[in-house]
């Protein structure tokens, strides 16, 4: 069958338009449903009270606190490692076998499913190192999970600092390290921060890696070694066990809003960063 190219173009264009609308609408539908059902559940009380009766009553304060602790530990560990790796790859070496191995390792790590991280954290931190189900085990597991993201974004950020900055710094008699800490890193900060914020988003929403390392005890965490339930795990349990759909929607709304804010901030930072560069 021969269709005239112009007709074909029109048909295809309509089809593409239709497919794109489906994709965008489905994605927006998810957002709208969560916010529409979740926002009415939100109140000051929901955010400042601990869950009661397995989550049927009360709020989600303890899960918010647990999420923040876990994310904080993850980034505390992953940021120095990730940024250090990026500095080494960009400033201290040229492309060779070693850098290829490092890059390959980071890319493979990025592709490993979170449940594998969960299994690994469970064996290493919970069992072998005897940390038990705890904020520390969960945080360290998450740190490994977000490490590749931080490496990749920091590397891009450091690479995009113009070479002239370094040359000027060297010509003033600075060592390599001085040039990096006083000239290169300060100009790369927005890019590095973008990576950190992205990792925060990933940590907040993670379930599979956290449920086997931080556990799911529903109480306010009292130390790094107490088992605790993050927002995402709480939401999963509420929804899966059918404990309370209204509370599940409320928790989901908090999660989604937090992630939207994080992504918007990232996006804003990146736009500004790109503008400044050009």
């Amino acid at each position: 069958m021969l269709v005239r190219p112009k007709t074909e173009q029109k048909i295809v264009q309509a089809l593409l338009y239709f497919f794109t609308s489906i994709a965008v609408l489905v994605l927006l539908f998810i957002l709208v449903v969560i916010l529409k059902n979740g926002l009415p559940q939100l109140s000051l009380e929901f955010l400042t009270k601990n869950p009661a009766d397995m989550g049927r009553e009360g709020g989600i304060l303890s899960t918010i606190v647990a999420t923040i602790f876990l994310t904080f530990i993850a980034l505390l560990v992953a940021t120095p490692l990730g940024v250090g790796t990026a500095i080494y790859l960009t400033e201290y070496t040229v492309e060779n076998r070693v850098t290829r191995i490092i890059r390959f390792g980071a890319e493979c790590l990025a592709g490993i499913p979170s449940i594998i991280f969960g299994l690994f954290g469970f064996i290493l931190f919970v069992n072998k190192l005897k940390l038990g189900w705890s904020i520390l085990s969960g945080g360290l597991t998450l740190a490994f999970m977000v490490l590749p993201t931080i490496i990749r974004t920091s590397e891009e950020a450091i690479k995009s600092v113009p070479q002239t900055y370094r040359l000027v710094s060297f010509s003033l008699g600075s060592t390599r390290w001085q040039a990096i800490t006083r000239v290169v890193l300060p100009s790369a900060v927005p890019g590095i921060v973008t990576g950190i914020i992205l990792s925060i988003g990933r940590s907040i929403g993670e379930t599979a890696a956290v449920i086997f390392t931080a556990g799911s005890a529903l109480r306010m965490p009292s130390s790094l070694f107490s088992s605790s339930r993050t927002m995402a795990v709480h939401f999963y349990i509420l929804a899966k066990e059918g404990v309370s759909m209204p509370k599940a929607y409320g928790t989901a709304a908090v999660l989604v809003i937090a992630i939207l804010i994080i992504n918007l901030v990232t996006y804003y930072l990146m736009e500004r960063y790109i503008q400044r560069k050009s």
Partner: protein
Amino acid sequence: MTKLDKNDRLIRISLLVVAFSAVSVLAVITIFIFEQGTPIMFKYGLRSFLLGSDWYPSEKSFGLLPMIVGSLMVTFGALIIGVPLGLASAIFLTEFSHRRLTRFLKPVIELLAGIPSVVYGFIGLMFLVPFIRENFGGPGLSVLAASIILGVMILPTVISIAIDSIRAVPDSYREGSIALGATKWQTVRMVVLPAARSGIVAGIILGMGRAIGETMAVIMVAGNAADIPGSILQPVRTLTSNIALEMGYASGEHREALFATGVILFVVIMILNTIANLTSARQKKR
């Protein structure tokens, strides 16, 4: 050697050590998963693990075939749904849509990549599962439901990587084709897409990896029966859900069998990653 030079050498060495963190983590994960999972595979024989179709951990029957088939089915289903939608969106957004619309829609799609997978699963459970149950029959918790949810979940990945690789095709290619009298669609089909092919393929493979590795969203909508599904309307259990569902209470050989499930998952993912890396490296070289 001055003191500053000495310091600089020290810094270089410590940074090299730090730089190996990612590789070491990967190595440690590999060692732990294999150390925990392979002994039982060899004890009962690789064959009975990979090809056995009965999963009764309490009776020491650890056949993973239903889960392997399950993972393949939902991943394949996710690709059938996610790839055409994702590719069409990417082509539309780069070649046909108004620039302003693209500038608005691309960040929106990327924003949605950040939504936690449990949320996708929850939406599936609340809307998709009842819809399938009422309109197509069966329990609703099914291969179909899992495929659709995963297909939607991989959309942002597929779209943004495809957009990047289509954009990387030089404009002179398009101009040359248009100058020869081709329509825009002919240009896209015969010039732009072939040039962007390896990037697009890498994006699809990454999406595939995400679909195979997804756990919580699948558990919520797949029904999780450890049998090979007879149709797409029947429940299914994937490798990932097998681990997540039973890890909480498993012990002894049962737990080792779950690690063996992890080993199989790990191997599949590593193969996919390597293929994705090689294809995207090929595009860069060109």
